């Protein structure tokens, strides 16, 4: 039984890393949002599995938040916003997809090398979870840096945050996990409301962050 529990946890956490890679090479906003919904779904399954394995019922709440809020509500709202703002076009990448994927592979290798070494004494389940979680966090950062578009930066941030929730769920018996996932949901809700309320398009004519650079720094 223990072997199976471990294998499934491993499969789900590994799946999250894989979906992170899928986020990396999307070049259309709608596709990006759909993949993100998948990302949140895998996270919800993974956290629910941890709740079951660790016999920690409060983690089911975190899984439910991930499922309802991040896999359904946020993608739907972002879809609407994109429609309303009329920006359903291709995403501009700063660097080519091949190079981004290579960098992603490098980051995953790095996080495995670091985390597996420093957690040598931890339980194998927690160990692998932390290594995968750090990979997801770093890939999220990579998405944020390689995209110029505000919506895809937000998606990058949300996938990064999914990695953190995975880490928190994997650290056995960690208190405040539910509170932290609620706090993060509020943060994300703020960002999404921010995109809409501030009407970045109206203010900046485009949601392309590159256009914001014109205003950066000193104004003459």
């Amino acid at each position, binding site marked *: 039984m223990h072997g199976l529990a471990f294998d499934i946890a491993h499969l789900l956490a590994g799946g999250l890393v894989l979906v992170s890679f899928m986020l990396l090479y999307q070049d259309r906003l709608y596709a990006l949002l759909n993949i993100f919904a998948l990302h949140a779904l895998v996270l919800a399954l993974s956290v629910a599995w941890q709740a079951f394995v660790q016999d920690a019922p409060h983690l089911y709440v975190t899984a439910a938040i991930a499922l309802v809020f991040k896999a359904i509500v946020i993608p739907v709202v972002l879809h609407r916003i994109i429609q309303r703002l009329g920006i359903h076009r291709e995403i501009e990448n700063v660097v080519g997809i091949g190079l981004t994927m290579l960098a992603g592979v490098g980051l995953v290798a790095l996080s495995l090398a670091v985390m597996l070494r420093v957690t040598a004494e931890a339980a194998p389940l927690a160990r692998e979870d932390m290594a995968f979680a750090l990979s997801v966090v770093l890939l999220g950062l990579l998405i*944020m840096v390689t995209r110029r578009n505000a919506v895809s930066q937000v998606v990058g*941030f949300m996938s990064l945050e999914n990695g953190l929730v995975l*880490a928190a769920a994997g*650290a056995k018996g960690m208190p405040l996990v539910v509170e*932290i996932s609620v*706090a993060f949901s509020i943060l994300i809700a703020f*960002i999404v409301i921010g995109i809409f309320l*501030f009407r970045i398009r109206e203010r900046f004519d485009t949601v392309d962050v590159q256009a914001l650079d014109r205003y950066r720094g000193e104004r*003459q």
Partner: protein
Amino acid sequence: MSGLPLHPATLVLLIPLATASLLALLPSYRLTARLNTLAALATLAAAVSLLVDDPPAPGHYLLVDELNIVFIVLSTFVGFTTSVFSASYIAHELAIERLTPKYLRFYHAMYQMLMFAMNLALLADNIGLMWVAIEIATLTTVLMVGIYRTHEALEAAWKYFILGSVGIALALFGTILVYMAARPVIGEGLDAMVWTVLLGHAAAFDPALLDVAFVFLLLGYGTKVGLAPVHAWLPDAHAEGPTPISAVLSGLLLNVALYAVLRFKLLLSGNPEALAPGPLMVTMGLVSLVFAAFMLYRRRDIKRMFAYSSIEHMGIITFAFGLGGPLANFAGLLHMVMHSLTKSAIFFAVGHIAQIKGTQKIADIRGLTETNPWLGWGLVVGVVAISGLPPLGIFMSEFLIVSSNFAREPLLAIPLVSGLLIAFGALLLRLNGLAFGEPTGSTAPAEASYVPMFAHLALVLAGGLYLPPPLVLWFQHVAGMLH
């Protein structure tokens, strides 16, 4: 809190929280501005009474010890004086219709919310709670930075939001790693996230895990301190938000983030096999100092210039704490207090100056000492203080930092002293243009409240001339705690 529902520590949290919800409901801006000041004063009173009250036994969530009392008293004091300044600043913004009464209601509620979040972060005895508090503080300041809703304000808020979020995300990962390190020793559950418990068992933690955790925490909370590689949000957020918020950001929020770094540094130095946190902090501090010193020369916006000066000083403070030892820690604490007081005084002056002149461009502001002697000379004293000239307080603390540095690591004094001198030159160069020469722009008298600014400057001057022995004793004690 251990059976004391109305202990000052709880009051320091409850007053801002209750006022925040009340202010969100009240429509009249005159009333809310007064109530804001009143609540800040009450919080200050509660914070001061922490000094005489016996600290309660540390609980699972809250902790009162000598280290955080210094931060709380400073925080609530600057919070109070800024609320006095804010009342007169806001009245002008309303008169020129840059802000509407609806936004003001929101502004005052957010101000108290920020005070609550900062006090919670300082009082937290739980690394998870501290993280949540710093996240709330980030959110409220993001909202306040964007309150003018101009191109620049929104861009600054967005940049701050994204960088701040990444910062706190990294900090959370570090927090989880600390828990992972503590769990095998302390056991599962809440205890493994409580400061006092963590500190007691630090020696038994897995050193490798602690090392990685500290790197994440330093980068994460360091983003909020405004340390050099991850400082990019800071100048924009200072320049585009309302000036009272710039004062609170520079004077308080940066300190709160630094406090978090210091707590984790204590944890690491409790473990003999973990990496020494000092050199990392020294490096980041020096890089921030030298980088910001050079950037000061190219500033054309007055608030942006003082924002870079904040990066410079946070660099100096981080350097001092990274160096460690009783003298450097003492100097670091003193420098932090003096910097908070001086920088917020400067922002009080700059806020009114920008209102009178209708611009923040340095080139368009000249001859302030002639047109507005009080503000002009206040700014002169403030800038002289911040650039580290005697007899003001910052000279004293910088002198202590440099001399302890010479005694311990003479080679590091080269970048430190050259950074200080470069920044000194830039500030005095700009000050000359701002304060003296042919006056330009509007010469209308300011409807300013001078009391907060001069109160701060008087304290900084007093600190440079004479430090009362009880204060020295208190700071020495805290410096001893910090290793």
